């Protein structure tokens, strides 16, 4: 079968530092996957490998069964809002329209009517249409996050990739955003990088735990006991559910169930 995202034996080094080591990950189509792990564990690096922003030293990336460069338009990316200069002079609609630029530079490019319609439709779907003329600095954190999700959706992707979507928003926006993602998950594969453990238990249908290596956890089954093990990720992880690989932290393969 084809997977939404298939990573085979991915390794990434930054100079001497190993960020990712022999990562194998298969994400089924329609999954709602959470990638969790400690800071510096390579979550963002993994995301950037899937997006083609970082070329891995080793391994292959396939998206929907094809090499990445053929299917990059099938991925909608939602970056962290803390990466942005919120004072930048751009309106909500213009942010979303960016998604319609396409992969090739064309001189005297103008957005078509359909592009604007698509952008407005997505904004409407996310209850943001009334804000379309607003400069992004005048939005709340939760609103800006949803604008970025709208931009990711305006690419019309099959897969939506989010980097810490709830890192800088308040609690009520957090649940609003996950409800939205759950809704979007009916049609799209969704992959979220997060340290938000509350979301882990209630929304995702599968989990991957990352700290340099991948301690993949196909299923989520998170009782308090497991939660603790997930937090103590580099040390060990006890098996629950199916496709499951547990590696010992010191390099030797421990077991497989």
């Amino acid at each position: 079968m084809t997977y939404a995202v298939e990573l085979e034996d991915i390794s990434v080094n930054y100079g001497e530092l190993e960020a990712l080591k022999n990562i194998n990950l298969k994400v089924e189509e329609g999954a709602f996957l959470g990638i969790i792990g400690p800071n510096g564990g390579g979550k963002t690096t993994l995301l950037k490998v899937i997006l083609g922003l970082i070329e891995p030293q080793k391994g292959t990336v396939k998206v929907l069964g094809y090499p990445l460069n053929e299917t990059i338009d099938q991925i909608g990316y939602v970056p962290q809002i803390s990466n942005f200069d919120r004072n930048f002079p751009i309106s909500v609609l213009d942010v979303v329209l960016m998604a319609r630029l396409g992969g090739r530079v064309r001189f005297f490019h103008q957005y078509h009517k359909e592009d604007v319609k698509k952008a407005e439709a997505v904004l409407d779907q996310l209850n943001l249409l009334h804000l379309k003329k607003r400069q992004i600095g005048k939005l709340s954190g939760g609103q800006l996050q949803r604008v970025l999700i709208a931009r990711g959706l305006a690419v019309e992707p099959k897969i939506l990739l989010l980097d810490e979507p709830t890192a800088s928003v308040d609690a009520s926006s957090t649940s609003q955003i996950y409800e939205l993602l759950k809704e979007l998950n009916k049609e799209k594969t969704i992959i979220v990088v997060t340290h938000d453990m509350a979301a882990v238990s209630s929304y995702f249908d599968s989990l991957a735990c990352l700290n340099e290596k991948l301690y993949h956890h196909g299923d989520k089954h998170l009782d308090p006991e497991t939660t603790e093990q997930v937090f103590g990720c580099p040390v060990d992880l006890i098996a629950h559910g199916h496709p499951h690989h547990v590696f010992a932290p010191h390099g030797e393969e421990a077991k497989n169930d």
Partner: protein
Amino acid sequence: MIEAILDFNFMQNAFAAAVLASIACGLIGTIIVEKKLVMLSGGIAHTSFGGIGLGYLLNIEPIYGAFAFAVGASLAIASIRRKIGTGSDTLIGMFWSLGMALGVLFIGFTPGYPPDISSYLFGDILTVRRVDVWMMGALTVFMLLAIISLFNYWKAYLFDEEFLRVLGVKSTLLENFLFIMIALAIVILIRVVGIVLVIALLTAPPAAARLYTEDLKKIMGLAVVFGLIFSFSGLTFSYYYDLPSGAVIIITAALFYFGSVVVRGSNE
């Protein structure tokens, strides 16, 4: 003064230079300010002094030397910056003084009396020649076309380069292109305000314009208008009171910016 512009060649040149400089500073200045490349642009400007010295030494037009050094420096900074990631201010500082040092050295080697370099350091709009105007004009038209024809991409690049890369757009091409344009803008402005003062003319008009509007296109347009006001104030004072034009332009620009901040608040 208007009669003088009609009658005298040097005033026509000064007038044209003021207009062209305002367009350059409005367009490129806005990009520099929004992409936070102000210090980097200062580094490129100062590096170009090395080219001016080399021009004197080799007995070619100094501004061509400045042109070559500015383009070389901007591409070098761009590529080294990509390699070492963030923390490019050390690199910029290095280029900044290295360029100045090279300029001083080359001028030292130049036989005969040392040339008067103050018009390159601080600008003198009344000494702009016809050939300078033609060069400035050509560069300005090129920049104008480059920015208008790729406007949507520039906007996306300034706001979120990474997303553009995810879409498959080669953002390093845009970046190199932008750095070359910064070099061009600096060369255009050197004749008017000089190497040392160029940064203020690149930043004050767009920064002031930002206080009045939240739309990138309008910021660029308004910055051009502000640039015109500042340049003509410099031209006027320089003509009637024999004041140094570069200094007057910069002081007007700075006063206008601070005034705008007081009037408009910090726009938060």
